[in-house]
Every structure is written in C-alpha cells, then in structure tokens.
C-alpha cells in the first residue's frame, strides 16, 4: 500500500474524529453551564449530587467511563439497546467534558467582581438579564484560555474512541500499520492531530482578539 492509498483509507477516520469532536463540544459546552448553575442551587441535595458527579467524572479515566457507558446498560441493567456504540461514545465524551467545562464556568463567574452583580441589582435588572447581558459576556472573555486548553485536549482525546472499536483516525492507523507493518499510518495520524490543533489554536486566538475590544 503506498502513501496515497494509506491517506485515502484514513480520511473517513479523520471525519469520524471530527464528528466526535463537534458533537462533544455541541453537547458539553451547554451542559457544562447547566451543571455549573446547578452547583449553586440552594438545595443541598442538588449541590451534593453535582459535586459527586464532577468529582467522579474528573477522578476516573475517560477510557474507563467509555467502557462503562458501552457495557453498562447490558451488564448492569440487562438492557439491550441495539447499535449502542456511537451513542455510548458521545454520551461518555459529553458527560466527561461537561464536568471540566462546569468548573471553568464556575471559576469564570466567581472571578467577576461582586460590584457588577450589585450594579445590576440596583439598576433593576432581573436575575436572568443580569446573567445573560452583563455577567456571561464578561465570563466568556475571561475563560477563553482555559476553554482553549480543553478543546485542544479534546482533539487528542478523540483517539480514545478506539477503546470501543470505533474507527476514528487513530484506530485506523493502528489497523493499517499492523496489516502493512509500516509506521507511516501513525505519522499520518500525527500530522492530522497537529494540523487540527493548529486550526483550533488559530480560531481560539481570533476569538480572543475579537473580544479584546475592551479590558
């Protein structure tokens, strides 16, 4: 198999990697915000559940969580769901990354000076107006570096999908490398991840610049 053929064979894998990446962000960014807001609930039970969730999810390997999601329904609950591979993968990634995003959001919100909240209160803004119009825009600017870190990590973490035998780019690289006894597929995969992260870093830096219209 020559280089071009290897590359062609791996392209579907690259698309699948991109699929995991986008769906995870689409799910985890909003879910993380919900979790962060729930963590400030006035009900102790809610706060407790959320804290436990964040602690367990951040405290165990994502690889392990993917296996739990995939095998859990059948072995723990005796449920047979059919084609569960892809949904399990996405649930696993989204729930995992939401925990990290939740803590980033919390840090961002807590770094906003209390005076901003008080000015809103005195001016008569409702709680949701305060959050959406005044607090959240400032939080987004503050958390961009931390979010960038997580997104870059996510690009590389998509390779963990090989645990569930999902053919994203890393799995394919492994297969082709084994069958062709060549290291080249890994080089191709490496270049793919590097280029993907370069694009991510570029986009995030543009976003940071756009938000730099104020200090």
């Amino acid at each position, binding site marked *: 198999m020559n280089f071009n053929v290897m590359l062609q064979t791996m392209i579907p894998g690259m698309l699948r990697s991109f699929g995991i990446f986008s769906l995870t962000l689409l799910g985890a960014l909003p879910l993380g915000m919900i979790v962060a807001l729930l963590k400030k609930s006035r009900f102790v039970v809610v706060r407790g559940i959320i804290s436990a969730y964040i602690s367990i999810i951040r405290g165990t390997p994502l690889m392990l969580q993917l296996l739990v999601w995939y095998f859990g329904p059948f072995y723990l609950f005796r449920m047979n769901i059919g084609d569960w591979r892809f949904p399990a993968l996405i649930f696993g990634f989204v729930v995992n990354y939401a925990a990290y995003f939740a803590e980033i959001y919390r840090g961002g919100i807590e770094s906003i*000076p209390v*005076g*901003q909240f*008080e*000015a809103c*209160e*005195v*001016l*008569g*803004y409702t709680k949701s*107006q305060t959050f959406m*119009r*005044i607090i959240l*825009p*400032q939080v987004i*600017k503050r958390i961009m570096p931390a979010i960038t870190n997580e997104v870059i990590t996510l690009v590389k973490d998509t390779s963990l999908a090989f645990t569930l035998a999902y053919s994203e780019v890393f799995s394919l690289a492994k297969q082709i490398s084994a069958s062709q006894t060549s290291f080249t597929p890994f080089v191709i995969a490496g270049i793919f991840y590097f280029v993907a992260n370069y694009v991510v870093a570029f986009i995030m830096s543009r976003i940071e610049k756009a938000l730099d*219209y*104020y*200090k």
Partner: protein
Amino acid sequence: MILEMNNIRKHFDGMEVLKDISFGVDSGEVVSIIGPSGSGKSTLLRCATFLETIDGGEIKYMDQVAAHTDEHGNAVYVGNHELHKFRSYCGLVFQQFNLFPHFSVLKNLIDAPVHVQRRSKEEATETAMELLAKMGLADRADAYPFQLSGGQQQRVAIARALAMKPEILFFDEPTSALDPELTGEVLKVIRQLAEVKMTMVVVTHEMPFAKAVSNRVLFMDGGVVVEQGDPHDVFDNPQEERTKQFLSVFER
C-alpha cells in the same frame, strides 16, 4: 418625604452594625453622612437601596412602605414585583464605579433604561447624550470604560444612575477611590445636581464638600447617629465628644 428610615436594625453574623437608626430625607434635600470606618454608613446606604435586608425597622419611599417590622419583631419586605418599583426610586453610585466594561459609555447609560424601564432606544439615547453633555463627556460616548480616567468613569456612573430618573440618588464614598486631582470633577457634578435640587444622600470623607453642599449632616459612629443637624452647626460647633474627636483629625 422621599425617604424615611425608622428604627433600622441590622446585624452581620451576630455583630450589630446598625443599632436603631432613624432619619428622613425631604425632596430636594442633600444629606451627607460622615463617620469613621465601620460606623455603618455604607451598610445604611445598602439597606436603603435594598442591597442588604434589615433585621428590624421600617423603610418608606414616597410614603409607601417597602419594609416594616411585624408583631414578632421580624422585618417583612413587600413582594418582588413591588420591590422593583421601590428600586426604581433610588439610584446608587458606588465607590468602585462598577461600570459594565464590555459596554461603551453610551450603552452603559441606555441599557438599563431600555431593558429594565422599557423605554425606546431613541428616548434613552437622547437622555443619555444630554446627561453626558452636562458632564462634559459627550465626545466619549463611544469610548469604553477602560479608556477613561477614574474621574470620568465615576461621572459616567453618576450619569448611568441619573438615566434611570430616580427620585433620590445615593452616593457611597464616590471619591474615595480617586486620587485628589480627579476628586474635584466628581464633586463638581454632585454640586451641580444639588443646585438643581436633586434629592441626594452622600456618604463621604470630603468634609469641606459636605459642609458646602449639604442641607443636613449626619455623624455616625458604632451603628448609631451620634449627631445630626445643619452642616455649620455640626462642623463648627459639634456638641458630642465623639464628633469633636472625629472632626479634629481633619483639622491638620
């Protein structure tokens, strides 16, 4: 009376910060509150503007009761919907300005009138530009707070409070975060407001200013009003020992 605070009690974690404060403000009056740190001046202002809740006493705006004490001795506030109306009566200028950094100066002034008071953008912009012109900041309407000096930011903060057309304007040490050169421009604005009979309560350490501009001065210490009256009486002829002690520090 625009504002009546009667027998206000407030404690934080068991420590009594306001011990039975009563005072009122009439339309067009300028009341200065002076006193050492920890005397409860800021807390009193924060209770008046509903940033803190009182533990006892009565708060009335325009003869309407916002909070009172029930038969068990607990402070009871009106519902959220009504409280909204009371909040619209008062404006507060903070020591730290608290402008919205991600909004331009103009947007800082029109955002609340448009989204809280539901006024039209055109009307809010007109009011905002008039206020900025009075402050001498009309040319900075599109600047962002970080581009302005402290004195300019505080004047924008005053304009932001005025844009809501409050009945009474509170100032919590408006010049304490400013260096002496910038203090003057802010005091000038407050003086102008006094001249057009804006009802105001100013917590300040600027004694000459308090003496010149107020109709009445309150000296607070340890959670009580120790002395109050006409500025010339309180400053030139203090009756209480604590007042004399406090004021002597300023006569260097």
